[in-house]
């Protein structure tokens, strides 16, 4: 190596290069997440982010104490929601801290922009954390490759594009960084790194429910090391420090509370903690007792302890002291569990089992490098590599069970691919070593034939490298394409292309929400399916009955029942729940398939689970067993509130031969609606809002009033 370039030593050069590469990776990581901002605008995406955004606003406006004690009476009307105690505050506190810090520097940014750009900025931090992890388990080359991979891997981008303001946005960084700190503390046996692991574990607990993965994986790592006979004092120091501090810290989050002491999800960590103490004690005893005594002692002690431990665990679980596994957890092991027992979990698309193409879609090249990385880890099996292998196995299993857990798989795939790739680089990019060896073997001075020979030895190396470079370019290409085409739509705003290629923006959701926000009483209660609850609260700023925090199944079932009942029953129920407006999403005009009629079966199913006497799924299929909406629909379907609200007067605008563009069926010829009054319908009919009529002042039914007024004049149809 040449001595000095630009007056820098070799060491300084490499560190400068590393810094520059990491900087560029960060820029690429942030940059590739901005498609949606450039194409649409700086806007919060989807559903849950709207809740996070709203609570962040509340935190910024009212301060931490009020936020902590916030009882939100505008959600789950009339029950309300204790917000402070039922959320992971990490992301809100992070945003508020950044916001206040910038304010302090006289940079008056909008809190919305902080929220929108939080995930991309944290993805840059994730890349840096992955670099550290890669460097910890192999070397800087592997680290840089892993960082570059995670910077653009679609599996992670899917949850961290600008505007996707969700817990995962910061949680993946925390996950990777906590693991890095853990591995370092195990390698060094450092109490300081153990404590730092606990600190970041606490941050993770405050940010995402996925912290359970950490608190099970680290004990598993410890257990595996013990089982492999790799106990060391370093492990003891690291785990004891981490577990004690981390558990105490995690209990400070109200939503977690005392769960680490009594729920099954946390028992493995506690058990391992006990085991480590025992093993440590055994090692101590061995230093003072003789060989025979020791073996006897160990045999008896292990037997007794095992029996005792299992007995206590079973007893506590049976007595209910240790909470059994939750339904969501069961569905992790048995993919069919949710479908049978908890329709509300099964109704969410991101809880479905993963299809095979998804892996290729989200990870591309990495999915092949992943096993290679595992192989290399086995070959050089250090404590760290044991951890990587365990992480790989578990994350791979879980990601196959639930689509959204590909997210937790992505970091380890990137690290493993980084290791594999670094090994390839090490072997095939090392030209210097091979060349002199060749020369020495032939024992000849460098000549024309020698350089020819050198060329021959270089050729396979170059060929392999060109091949891999091609794969890497394709990977980059694939990632950009997936990000741009699949993961960069805000879903609040839709885009379509006209036949001439012109760009149309379909903004019906915001049109309706803003109409509600500006033209209804601030105390108005809006009934809609739970999917739109968070958006209604965030954009329309009105009280909702149910929202995406699906904690009360009965309440959701009641809303489902209102939608599935006939008009008069629904009217009575709606009035009893103080509902002022009913909002439905209808895609029949535009061909938007994610509308309420298509979700209606889930509503019916959930309602039937609670009110089996009033709602029956079978009655919504017609005699041929079809899910029809036109004149051939079943009576229950035609009379249901949902059907009426969606198709009310839709035929008048589509003409007598009109079609529903989603279901490709003929429209019902007449829809009578007397108890509800059209309040607003958006440009493309996607959102329809109805007012629940006041009781008639003369005590008549609304049907009688409508009959008295006579039929509504039919509109003139020009086409």
């Amino acid at each position, binding site marked *: *190596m040449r001595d000095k370039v630009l007056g820098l030593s070799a060491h300084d050069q490499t560190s400068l290069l590393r810094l520059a590469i990491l900087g560029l990776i960060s820029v690429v990581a942030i940059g590739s997440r901005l498609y949606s901002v450039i194409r649409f605008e700086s806007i919060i995406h989807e559903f849950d982010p709207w809740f996070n955004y709203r609570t962040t606003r509340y935190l910024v406006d009212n301060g931490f104490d009020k936020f902590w004690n916030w009882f939100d009476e505008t959600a789950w009307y009339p029950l309300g929601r204790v917000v402070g105690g039922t959320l992971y505050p990490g992301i809100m506190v992070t945003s508020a801290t950044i916001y206040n810090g910038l304010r302090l520097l*006289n940079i008056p940014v909008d809190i919305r922009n902080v929220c929108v750009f939080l995930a991309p900025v944290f993805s840059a931090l994730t890349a840096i954390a992955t670099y550290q992890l890669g460097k910890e388990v192999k070397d800087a080359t592997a680290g840089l490759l892993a960082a570059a991979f995670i910077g653009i891997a679609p599996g992670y981008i899917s949850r961290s594009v600008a505007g996707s303001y969700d817990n995962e946005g910061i949680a993946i960084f925390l996950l990777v960084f906590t693991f890095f700190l853990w591995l370092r503390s195990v390698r060094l046996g450092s109490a300081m790194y153990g404590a730092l692991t606990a600190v970041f574990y606490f941050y993770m607990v405050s940010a995402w429910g996925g912290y359970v993965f950490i608190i099970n994986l680290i004990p598993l790592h410890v257990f595996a090391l013990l089982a492999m006979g790799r106990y060391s004092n370093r492990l003891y120091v690291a785990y004891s420090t981490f577990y004690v501090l981390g558990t105490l810290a995690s209990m400070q989050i109200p939503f977690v509370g005392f769960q680490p002491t009594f729920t099954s999800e946390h028992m493995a960590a506690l058990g391992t903690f006990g085991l480590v103490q025992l093993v440590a004690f055994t090692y101590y005893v061995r230093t003072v007792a003789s060989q025979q005594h020791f073996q006897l002692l160990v045999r008896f002690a292990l037997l007794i302890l095992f029996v005792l431990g299992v007995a206590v665990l079973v007893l506590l679980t049976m007595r209910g002291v240790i909470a059994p596994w939750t339904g969501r957890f069961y569905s992790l092991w048995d993919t069919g569990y949710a479908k049978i027992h908890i329709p509300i979990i099964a109704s969410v698309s991101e809880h479905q089992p993963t299809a095979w193409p998804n892996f290729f879609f989200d990870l591309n090249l990495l999915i092949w490098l992943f096993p290679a990385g595992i192989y290399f880890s086995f070959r050089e099996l250090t404590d760290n590599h044991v951890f990587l292998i365990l992480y790989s196995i578990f994350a791979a299993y879980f990601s196959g069970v639930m689509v959204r857990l590909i997210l937790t798989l992505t970091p380890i795939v990137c690290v493993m691919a980084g290791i594999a790739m670094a090994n390839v680089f090490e072997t095939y990019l090392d030209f210097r070593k091979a060349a002199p060896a060749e020369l020495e073997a032939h024992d000849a001075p460098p000549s024309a034939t020698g350089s020819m020979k050198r060329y021959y030895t270089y050729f396979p190396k170059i060929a392999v490298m060109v091949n891999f470079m091609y794969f890497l370019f394709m990977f980059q290409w694939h990632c950009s394409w997936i990000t741009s085409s699949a993961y960069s739509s805000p879903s609040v705003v839709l885009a379509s292309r006209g036949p001439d290629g012109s760009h149309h923006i379909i903004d019906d959701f*915001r049109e309706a929400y803003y109409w509600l926000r500006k033209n209804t009483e601030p105390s108005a209660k809006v009934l809609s399916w739970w999917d739109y609850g968070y958006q209604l609260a965030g954009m329309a700023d009105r009280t909702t009955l149910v929202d995406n925090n699906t904690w009360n199944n009965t309440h959701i079932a009641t809303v489902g029942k209102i939608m599935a009942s006939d008009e008069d029953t629904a009217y009575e129920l709606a009035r009893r729940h103080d509902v002022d407006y009913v909002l439905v999403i209808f895609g029949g005009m535009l061909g938007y398939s994610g509308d309420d009629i298509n979700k209606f079966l889930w509503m019916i199913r959930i309602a039937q689970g609670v009110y089996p006497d009033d709602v029956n799924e079978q009655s919504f299929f017609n005699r041929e067993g079809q899910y029809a909406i036109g004149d051939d629909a079943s009576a229950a379907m035609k009379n249901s509130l949902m059907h009426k609200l969606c198709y009310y007067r839709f035929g008048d605008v589509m003409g007598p031969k009109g079609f529903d563009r989603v279901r490709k069926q003929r429209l019902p010829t007449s829809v009578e609606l007397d108890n509800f009054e059209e309040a607003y319908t958006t440009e493309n009919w996607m959102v329809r809002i109805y007012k629940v009529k006041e009781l008639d002042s003369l005590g008549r039914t609304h049907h009688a009033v409508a009959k008295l007024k006579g039929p509504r004049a039919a*509109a003139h149809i020009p086409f």
Partner: protein
Amino acid sequence: MLAQSVQNYILFIVLACLLLVSQAHGFTRESGSGRVGSSSYSGLVNTNVIRTIDLKSLPTVYEQVGVVVQNEHDSKVFKSYTVVVPYFKQIHLAHIGVRERKGGVELDVTQLEKPSGNDTALSAPVLYRATLKRALQPGEKISLNIDTVYLNTVLPRPAMVKQSDDQKWEWAEDLLVSSVYPTRKQKTVVNTRGVITSFAKVTEGGGSSKNGRSVTFGPFTSDMMAKLEGVQANVRFRDNSEQLEALTHRREYFVSHWGNDLNILEYYALRNRAPAIEDGFDKVKQTMSKFTKSRDNFVKTLLLKVPADARQMYVVDEIGNVSTSAVTGRRRIKGELPFKVMQLKPRYPLAGGWNYTWWHGYSVPLSSYLRIDSRNGNQHLLRVPFIGALTGSASQEEEISLSAIDSHNTASSNYELRITLPEGASNVNVHLPFAVDSMRMEPLSYYFDSTGRTVVVIEQRNVAPDSNKEYVLVTYSYSALSLWKKPLVIAGVIFTLFVMASAISRTQLGLLPLKNGNASSKIMKKSTKTE
């Protein structure tokens, strides 16, 4: 059931009676106070009063009262004339001015202090004093024109109609012009834009009569006036033109010397004054009207002129970009600077009574608005429009005619003007085209400010749309050094950070010296490998 509703009706009637009695009581008290007033002003007499009310450019109402004033006192000389504005009109008052008819000399007008005290005093009429240019000698006569402008006083009647029915409006006020002086003869003429459907019938004196699109009440002589005291006059007419009220209107200017940039931001909370929708919104009809080009009462587009060199335009509301807006190319009208038209489409069409809130902004080159004093380089003079005008349109057409853009049918009932000067501006002076309700200076720390900057805040209730031709002048001193202050401060901070980072990386924080097993050995391994 029946018994209960009968009970309700009785209760209602009793309440209504009570209300009427209390109203009547109020009227007598008010007129009583007027009489008390008139005694102290005795001497001046209005020999003839002609009031003309112009309802052609609603929601702005132009009222002109022509009075012939005579000093009938034996010896007293009068230096001023007092104008009465009833309280309920005063809260909608946008402008008041008094001119001598001969020569058109504008007189100084000042509002008189209200006697403080109870609610009655609060709702008492407001008095304005116009100082005459030349004192009125005994026996002398003078003709005065009192010009007043009111906003949003005309209301829709009925308050609810179907969404494409005609809009009808009602002007309703006291039949007689209130004055502190005795009046010999008076007449009121009301002119409208649309067809008059009904008006109050008066039989005394000249009575009331309709002539095309105007209604005349009177003339009435002083003996009839006693009878007509407290009588209400009204005119109902059809008018389908759009009327909007800006409940809150804020215009902000940001001056940036660095970018040669004047940034303008306008915030509106708008309400359509049209009658509300009866029997619910009808989407089918609304969709159909697009194809049949038939009229309805929805305001669909908001138009505003911006300078032709405006750039970086945006329209945002509380939940994000409003993507349906457009801007036209350069347009030019004789005698005006070239301009562009921003066509803002609200997220939803505005029916009567519906609200819409948004803000929009753009940048223009600062040099067109800022003069630097050539003798004294520090002295800067900024000249900007007092308010921006907005036109709402219910037209279904894509391209809107230029004349429609100037109809300016938005009246701002609460207006705030904020001018943010650059950091380092001092000796700030503001010259206003007319007196305003309040003006103050506020400090503000904006992007990377170290000492903060000054914001001029002007607040005014009821600003008529035609005030957009008025300008505000702000003068301030700003030295060349202030221009370099910000980059220097930022550079200094960054430099300090680097120095600190450099110092920290050279400091050993641990108690023990670094273990040789870690970093350094790795590097050695690396270097041996590469050699």
